[in-house]
């Protein structure tokens, strides 16, 4: 069964450093998403991406965040200057139908980001 993959599984960085989290969505999917989950809290939507542009973003997704699909397979989330409160699990997801009511999103295993 095809799956979403994410690298690295765990990233430790110093406050103020830039990090890039990488995702390889399922190959025939066209819609891509990033979510995050702070330890012990609920999963929060960050951004959705389709046709090489952002479809929607949440309040969390400020100017420090950016997303990119640099080639036909990768989808990345960049945090320019990390803060302590960015420590969380970051999940990438992909789907075929976007905002269709019957859409199913497939999530990756996550990247645990620890900011020191």
């Amino acid at each position, binding site marked *: 069964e095809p799956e979403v993959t994410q690298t690295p599984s765990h990233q430790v960085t110093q406050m103020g450093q830039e990090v890039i989290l990488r995702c390889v969505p399922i190959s025939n999917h066209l819609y891509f998403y990033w979510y995050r989950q702070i330890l012990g809290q609920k999963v*929060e939507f960050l951004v959705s991406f389709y046709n090489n542009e952002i*479809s*929607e973003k949440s309040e969390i997704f400020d100017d420090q965040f950016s997303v990119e699909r640099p080639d036909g397979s990768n989808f990345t989330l960049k945090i320019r200057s990390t803060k302590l409160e960015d420590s969380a699990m970051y*999940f990438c997801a992909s789907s075929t139908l976007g*905002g269709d009511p019957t859409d199913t999103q497939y999530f990756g295993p996550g990247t645990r980001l620890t900011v020191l």
Partner: protein
Amino acid sequence: LAKTTQPISMDSYEGQEVNITCSHNNIATNDYITWYQQFPSQGPRFIIQGYKTKVTNEVASLFIPADRKSSTLSLPRVSLSDTAVYYCLVGGGVYNQGGKLIFGQGTELSVKP
């Protein structure tokens, strides 16, 4: 997107049937009901989706009454590996909202031997 209410936690024993009910009183006409499962330190995983009546797949059943103001996820004969958080999501009634999923706190199911 419709607000959902579900129990914060539930306990069960291996081999039992578990029913988790979700309330969504302001569900819209075009909204679908979707359940996701999340194991610790893993991403959410789609379990089942329905619009009305009953839906069954190899993992679970979803019961939706005629007024659609609630839904019940039924897990038959649970095992220890079913210990997870279960999320009820309602939405998708407007096409091309960007597709974001709004997760609540979910129901933490603990299955004991």
